[in-house]
């Protein structure tokens, strides 16, 4: 692309911000990790209570 590429970006007014992307990614990864922890915790609880299956 030539020099005009930086002169006007038609998407600039309606772009997701870097902060939003940062929050989304970190939330996604932490949330996924918490999911694994939750499943293990629930398994232990079900096992102790004899409610696995």
């Amino acid at each position, binding site marked *: 692309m030539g020099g005009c590429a930086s002169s006007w*970006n038609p*998407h*600039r007014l*309606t*772009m*997701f*911000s*870097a902060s*939003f*992307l*940062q929050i*989304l*990614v*970190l*939330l*996604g*990864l932490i*949330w*996924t*990790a918490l*999911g*694994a922890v*939750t*499943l*293990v915790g*629930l*398994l232990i*609880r*079900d096992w102790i209570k004899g*409610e*696995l*299956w």
Partner: protein
Amino acid sequence: MMTDEPALPVSTAWSLVLGLGVLWVVLGIWWGKKAQTSEGFMLAGRNVGISLGSATAMATWVTSNTTMVAPLLAFEKGIWGMLAYASASFGLMLFAPLAYRIRRLLPDGVTAGDFFRRRYGHAGWAVFLVITLVYSITWLVTMAIAGGKLLEALGGIDYVQGMTLILGVCVLYTLFGGLYAVIGTDFIQSLIILVGIVFIGFEALQHVNVQEVHSYLVAEQPALLDVMMPAALLAIFNNMLFGFGEVMHNNVWWSRAFAMREKVAPRAFFLSGVLWFPIPIAAGFLALCAGPLGVNVTDPGKVGPQVAEHVLGLAGLGSMAGVIILVVLFCSMASSIDSLLAATSDLLVRDIYEGVFGQHLNPEKFRPISATAIVVVSLIAWALALSEWSIDQVLFSAGALVASLIWPVIAGLFWRALNVPLVIVGIIAGCVTGLWAYFQIQPYTGALVGAAVSMVFTFAARWVGARPLGTLTD
């Protein structure tokens, strides 16, 4: 993986898949001892708790599509692409109140076919069976094809051999253990998937920060950050409705609703949706890292594993990178293949063998019949997967079919009177118009149109010529 050279030596790939396969089969045999009756085999004794229930619903919904198509959507449609795929989790969450209703109304139900037969008669049952069998078989075939391609790309294993291996492993432990084996292995597979995705995601952040990714996209691919990207916005709603239709109609989810304890089912489905939601976002993020990391993406359909391999290589993991990716992807496929085998064979046994052919299944001598059904389903899938044809297009177009069942399911569960023939006409009309829209307008309109047309007919059936619905207990 996306280079021409496999990431793993052939011997390593074979050892890995065979090792995992032996593990799942041994567990399947062990857990299969609990299945002393057909109800135990098909529905795990109707006593599954919340931990196993949530994990199996979540793991089944994590397919190779989640780990490979979610990054593809992010690569092509940016942030909205990731969120569009994540919106499929709403199907699981919204199934929670339906699961509660299903357990209340069908305490002895075995398959989703029981609901359609009792609520909508033989005509509605037949339409449902056609849609769900077509959809389930195509879903199974896409998983088998993905498995074969994965082993070929990652480990240099011949496509037919790899595809046969993955299908064969899943068939074996499902044969031995039924839904007990499926649910038990799903829990282990779900943990591997979650941990793997988190590990790869955080490893990516060690080599590129989000600000760099954003700056790169602003400069090179600003459309991927566009809040008003039309195609992506369309994709969100189409994907969401596709997800609703898949979950609400398919016996994979109904069998789980029947398998869980009555009060557990709603909570487990809701929790599984919550657990599933971030996975496409975490997987999709990898695709956005491709540019800043300088990864030359040769096949957008494999951008996720390609970037993952690159990231793990930067971390100094060497060939372990291929091992981790293969294990995570194998688990994501196995967790869906086993569920499809079990649920689809249950339909063949309950709805075709018993329902259509009027045979009686001896609750204690069920194994030959159930085994035959599992083998038949797997052979059909294997034969169709041999050709490696682009069956994913068939699967995506089926969004129109399954979306047409959303409102009939909801109406059948919550309304007391309906004009049944009008609902059935609506399902068929939704299928036809949805498919027309998929092929003639744009793929991301198929499920939207199918659901909308079916909805109009279903609502009309509530007020025009409505008659009390058939009972849900025999």
